[in-house]
């Protein structure tokens, strides 16, 4: 290897002066272009922090963001990227001959390239009385520029809670004003010009903005030239050139920025408002010195916003790393948005038309605080002001940024006149309007179909296929069919079928099955559905037949889900869970010991207390189930089926200081009565000993809550799962026996009338609590006795499925040839 090759490997020294948004961004851009391998990077930053997002300071002041959220690069970032950071150190000068930078702390950093990113500071107008006679800042006078300023302002405002004057009615001034209001300070904005935000707005917009700002209880004083800050040892007011005085306790300077260009001037670089740069962001005097951000002046412009500074940083990085040797910056398009709560404002580009080429498009509605003005040049957007309604800002900003040709319809530039949001009525819809997108069916097709004799929505849908794709147009199709039939619609019977594969409603089906003695799922298909077995209908039928026939029901295992076939709840890894019955959540040491023994014997991976006050043994292989059940010797807790599950209870009046009813023994009675009863969907119950409702009885399918006077409230249709619903009060009764009676009656009514897989909350909402009360309590349909008899039969037919399983010869159901995965 030649020496030349080695020496090329030496990294060059890059010194960055300034650690604000521009300096840090430039460094980041350089690093992403592999600059970390080319340069030893040193950064001087005179604030004692890492780098933060200055434009969010207003949010910190107004409390909408916390300080730590605005940091872009914490101190560690510099370390991680091998950057030497002189934190809190002011860089005094650049020695261009010696090629080094001198820090105020005496540090000397040699450079090959240097980047000046010193930014700017608040412009403090020449005003008397800003400082105390001894030269210290007068207490109560602030600038608004850094995180420290932000903290000090907030602190002072909180302690004085008086009146604050903001000098400067530009972007920063208004943001500061609104922010200060949060500290209980009465705020006035004092502005030299004749209207607010004169950099971004024309006079008309300024006037509208003034009205809006004043409505927020912020005073606005225009054309006021502040000459003096009053007060001996702290601020008491300000005096204007016209002699007027404003009493106040603090003054915040927000009168623009002044580039920190002194370091450039000191080392002999050309400086006007800021340091002059070429298109590569280098000083026009020294190709080794780059300048970026608010301290750079490019083609007469000094930019005080983030977007331009980032564009500059990109060009700088492209050039300094050689990634794009001919990279060039051609100036930025400037746009601003005011971030003041309650004011919507966006502005970009020109404020006023400049010559006759410029076309002005304008809309004002001062009462609403709305003002929109566009300046269009050669069909492109040269400037825009939006106040009050900025819904088009996003579009206009992009058109402005990209110089996109604008549509000739100027109205669309000011307003969203997109697709009308008004919904057409069925009559108003044109015949060719497409109703079903999936299957391309128009209103005309639907009308024709109705005319040809299909008189209900379902028939029309089947014939035209409208609504048979995604189904989203179903209700619209129904409306159109109704409209076409002129109200003489024939109801479609099938929506009332209990299961899709058998054409009967639930009550009809119950009656027919009883009459024809249909006791198995296959017999129902054979007799009532032309022998066509429909898999989706099987579990529903199985549940129904079990409800009707109780003991006489003929089981056919394939009609049931796996859980109900093996009487256990399948888990995601293919193992099962076993939950023995613990009535009312009350157990005994002996029972607990037995459970513990079983858990140890079978190496049960997890033993867990359930939400239903029981104990769950998890991770059990299918083939172990019968043995475990036998060893437990406790009946099934039915934690797996579409059936009555469990009844939670609190300790009730027996032990609880607040208890007014014996909820525990009621829960045990409930468990003993309803265990294993099949239902259309699971039924969870609870009893609470007082209205504090510790056992959550009001959000159960059926819940009983003890109230004063030995009474019990019965709630039905509660839910607290994916769906949350407070149960409806069914009735108030006097005894445990009545709770059992009405709960049983309700349960049977639910069993006979709910659709398969319809939870009680859906059922109660669908039928309505009034109707349910009429049937259950007032026995309006005279069905009370039949309901009672039917549920008693089901209760009498109960067998513990576990006992049946382990006493029978081992059914093939529990065979397991392969082990489950871990």
């Amino acid at each position: 290897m030649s020496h030349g090759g080695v020496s090329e490997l030496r990294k060059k020294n890059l010194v960055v002066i300034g650690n604000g948004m521009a300096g840090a961004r430039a460094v980041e851009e350089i690093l992403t272009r592999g600059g970390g391998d080319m340069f030893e990077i040193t950064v001087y930053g005179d604030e004692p922090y890492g780098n933060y997002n200055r434009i969010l300071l207003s949010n910190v002041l107004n409390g909408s963001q916390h300080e730590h959220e605005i940091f872009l690069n914490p101190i560690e970032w510099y370390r991680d990227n091998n950057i030497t950071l002189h934190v809190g150190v002011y860089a005094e000068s650049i020695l261009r001959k010696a090629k080094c930078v001198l820090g105020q702390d005496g540090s000397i950093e040699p450079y090959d390239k240097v980047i000046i990113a010193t930014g700017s500071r608040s412009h403090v107008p020449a005003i008397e009385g800003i400082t105390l006679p001894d030269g210290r800042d007068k207490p109560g006078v602030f600038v608004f520029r850094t995180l420290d300023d932000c903290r000090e302002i907030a602190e002072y405002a909180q302690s004085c809670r008086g009146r604050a004057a903001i000098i400067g009615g530009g972007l920063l001034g208004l943001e500061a004003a609104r922010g200060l209001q949060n500290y209980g300070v009465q705020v006035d904005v004092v502005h030299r010009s004749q209207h607010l935000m004169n950099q971004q707005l024309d006079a008309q917009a300024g006037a509208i903005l003034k009205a809006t700002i004043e409505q927020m209880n912020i005073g606005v004083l225009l054309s006021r030239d502040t000459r003096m800050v009053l007060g001996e040892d702290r601020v008491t007011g300000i005096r204007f050139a016209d002699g007027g005085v404003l009493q106040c306790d603090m003054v915040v300077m927000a009168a623009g920025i002044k580039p920190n260009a002194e370091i450039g001037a000191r080392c002999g670089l050309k400086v006007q408002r800021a340091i002059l740069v070429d298109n590569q962001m280098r000083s026009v005097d020294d190709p080794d010195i780059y300048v970026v951000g608010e301290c750079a002046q490019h083609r007469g412009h000094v930019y005080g916003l983030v977007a331009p500074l980032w564009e500059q940083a990109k060009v700088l990085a492209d050039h300094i790393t050689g990634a794009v040797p001919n990279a060039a910056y051609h100036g930025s398009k400037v746009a601003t948005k005011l971030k003041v709560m309650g004011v919507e404002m966006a502005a970009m580009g020109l404020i006023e038309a400049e010559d006759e080429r410029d076309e002005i498009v304008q809309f004002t509605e001062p009462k609403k605080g709305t003002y929109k003005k566009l300046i269009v040049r050669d069909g492109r957007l040269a400037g825009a002001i939006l106040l009050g309604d900025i819904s088009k800002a996003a579009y206009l900003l992009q058109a402005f940024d990209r110089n996109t040709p604008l549509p000739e319809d100027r109205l669309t530039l000011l307003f969203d006149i997109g697709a009308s949001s008004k919904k057409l009525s069925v009559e108003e819809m044109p015949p060719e309007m497409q109703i079903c997108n999936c299957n391309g069916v128009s209103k005309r097709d639907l009308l024709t179909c109705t005319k040809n004799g299909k008189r209900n929505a379902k028939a029309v849908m089947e014939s035209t296929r409208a609504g048979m794709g995604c189904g989203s147009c179903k209700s619209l199709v129904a409306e159109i069919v109704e409209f076409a039939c002129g109200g003489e619609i024939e109801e479609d019977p099938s929506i009332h079928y209990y299961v899709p594969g058998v054409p009967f409603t639930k009550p009809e089906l119950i009656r027919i099955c009883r009459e024809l003695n249909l006791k198995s799922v296959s017999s129902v298909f054979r007799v009532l559905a032309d022998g066509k077995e429909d898999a989706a209908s099987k579990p529903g039928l199985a549940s129904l037949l079990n409800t009707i026939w109780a003991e006489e029901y003929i089981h056919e295992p394939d009609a049931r889900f796996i859980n109900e076939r093996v009487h256990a709840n399948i888990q995601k890894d293919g193992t099962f869970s076993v939950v023995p019955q613990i009535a009312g959540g009350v157990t005994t040491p002996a029972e607990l010991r037995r459970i513990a023994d079983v858990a140890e014997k079978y190496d049960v991976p997890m033993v867990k207390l359930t939400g239903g006050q029981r104990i769950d043994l998890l991770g059990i292989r299918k083939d172990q189930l019968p043995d475990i059940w036998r060893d437990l010797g406790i009946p099934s807790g039915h934690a797996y089926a579409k059936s009555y599950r469990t009844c939670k209870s609190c300790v009730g009046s027996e032990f609880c200081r607040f208890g007014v009813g014996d909820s525990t023994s009621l829960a045990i009675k409930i468990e003993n009565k309803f265990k294993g009863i099949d239902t259309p969907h699971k039924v969870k119950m609870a009893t609470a000993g007082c209205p504090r409702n510790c056992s959550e009885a009001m959000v159960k399918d059926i819940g009983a809550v003890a109230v004063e006077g030995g009474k019990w409230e019965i709630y039905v249709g509660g839910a607290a799962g994916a769906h949350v619903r407070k149960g409806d009060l069914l009735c108030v009764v006097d005894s445990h026996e009545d709770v059992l009676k009405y709960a049983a009656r309700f349960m049977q009514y639910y069993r006979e009338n709910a659709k398969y897989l319809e939870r009680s909350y859906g059922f109660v909402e669908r039928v309505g609590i009034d109707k349910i009360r009429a049937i259950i309590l007032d026995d309006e349909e005279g069905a009370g006795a039949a309901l009672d008899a039917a549920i008693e039969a089901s209760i009498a037919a109960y067998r513990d499925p576990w006992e049946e399983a382990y006493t029978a010869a081992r059914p093939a159901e529990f065979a397991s040839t392969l082990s489950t995965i871990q």
Partner: protein
Amino acid sequence: MTVSSRNGRTTIAGRYFPVNRGGLCQKGWSAAELLDHPERLRTPLIRDNKGSELRPASWDDALNRIADEIRSIHAQHGRNTVGVFGGGSLTNEKAYMLGKFARVALRTSQIDYNGRFCMSSAAAASIKAFGLDRGLPFPIADIEHARTILLVGSNVAETMPPVMQYFQAQQLSGGSLIVVDPRKTPTAAAATLHLQITPGSDVALANGLLNLAIRGGYIDEQFIQSRTSGFEPIRRTVSAYWPDRVERITGIPEKQLVDAARLLGEAQTAMVLTARGPEQQSKGVDNVLGFINLILALGKAGKPYCGYGCVTGQGNGQGGREHGQKADQLPGYRKIDNPEHRAHIAAVWGVPEESIPGPGRSAYEMLEDAGSEDGIRGLLIFGSNLSVSAPRAAHIERRLRALRFLCVSDFFLSETAALADVVLPSAQWAEEEGTMTNVEGRVILRNAAVPPPDGVRSDLQIISGLAERLGAVSRFPAEPQEVFTELRHASRGGAADYYGITYERIEQENGVFWPCPAEDHPGTPRLFLDQFATPDGRARFHAVEYRGPCEQPDDEFPLYLTTGRVMQQYQSGTQTRRVRQLRDAVPEVFVEIHPSMASSHELSSGDRARVITRRGVVTLKVRLSLAIRMDTLFVPFHFPEGGRANLLTNPALDPVSRMPEFKVCAARIEKAAECLTEV
């Protein structure tokens, strides 16, 4: 669906299945028309010399010709000069066999498939972030239960209508649906909130939403700490995406950004779903990673009713990418450059490990220089209409013409088949048995409903016949179930493990979700509940920056062009353009344009206009729509010849997934009557 055949007429009816819940769209109802369509190929076709016409031939002649051509190219140029191109609509069995055929019978590394143009960005991002790629890590029915869903670049209502019902149910139960799309599609119109994004600015949106989520205190620090890694750099990256900057990049009003972040942040459960919109870009992987970062930071992954998912397009888009027709992949989602993975597959195939070739080139790269000195000389295409569907289609068509030998298997003489030297008539969906793996990772079985017409063979029979003629050492059965049994063993222990899945189980259980490593394993409907599939079990954040699309509008091409599908058509239109009622609904290619922009170009509805990009010109009919952004044009991609949207699209590739940038490029539009501009 159920297919029945009576008196020679085949009819289709909806069937309740847990995915579509009985719904079918027009494409489904009308699919039977394809089975006995008069244009159906019923005999192999051979072109004797370049320049001569295709003529009917016997199967023996056709297969012998292919084998001869392959042997001759092999002898002259080496094994890697014959390529294979597969498709995401092939069954798992075919995809598997095609991969094996390439590696064992042809011993070529050059195999890829059209899924590269479809899901590859989402797949790559999922593997990076979660260690595993399965379209949805949850059953599709879970959509209903997510309180907020961010659906990015997907027009479900028109592209997969039956799936739309889940989003409707989700909204009906009080959930919020946020749709991101440059067009107000029927899906967007049905949403709670529509973010009308500037094409190609997805990363800015994702980072901007995360910025707002952090600001709003919506992120789940506990989840980030316990189940993910790499969050700190993200916090810093997104801090530079404050709302008004993101508004300016994406064109989405700040207020809508804030609303979207709030809906996502305050929801108990949330999902982010992406589709081709953000994925078919040269920053497709970054786009998806950006959205994954968002869902991870919100702590809404690896939990029920939460997570990131990719909505797949093709019937077997998922299974098609798991079993070896991808250039870098072996069955079971194994990697072709992993020695252990190679050894497993070599053992199943009964070949020496070193005989399996290494990774090949991705779809576009393989096609880009086909027929040249450095490229492949011969190509076998199964189930893909490349001259319509590939980006920069005119160039690809030239490359296909330049091949020494091209063989296409299809059921119609597609635009690509018309270029071939040998065309093989293959069986269609309802004529053969086979499994597909749907968007949920659910392996489903498609039964044969009708016998294939005389003279038509299944792809498996074709592969088997070719392998035999080429003297391949391993077995190439033509029976789907036999292939599936081999596939089960090949996938065993891989990421996409099908070992426990059998045809019987699929029938009985309405499909089985992979991974399913044993016959008594219930399958895995929900992934990642305990841990992610990365080595340390943690999901990974990846910092991504907005870099914009490869082409931005400029003076010459001032508008964005985006492409997509219409309701009645599917893919390159080879099938759907042949069904009368579908063709009648959308008979020809059109451009969708905002009326304001149209009037500036003096265009009105029904006019003929020319859309021009740096790659080509398409003349088409103007369709005015208030639903599209003023700066954007939309052209559907199903149409052939001069109407091919892909004459216009940009083939710039994503550096990771090699996905071309179908979804955004710069364009201009002019009235067709004006003088022609050569481009």
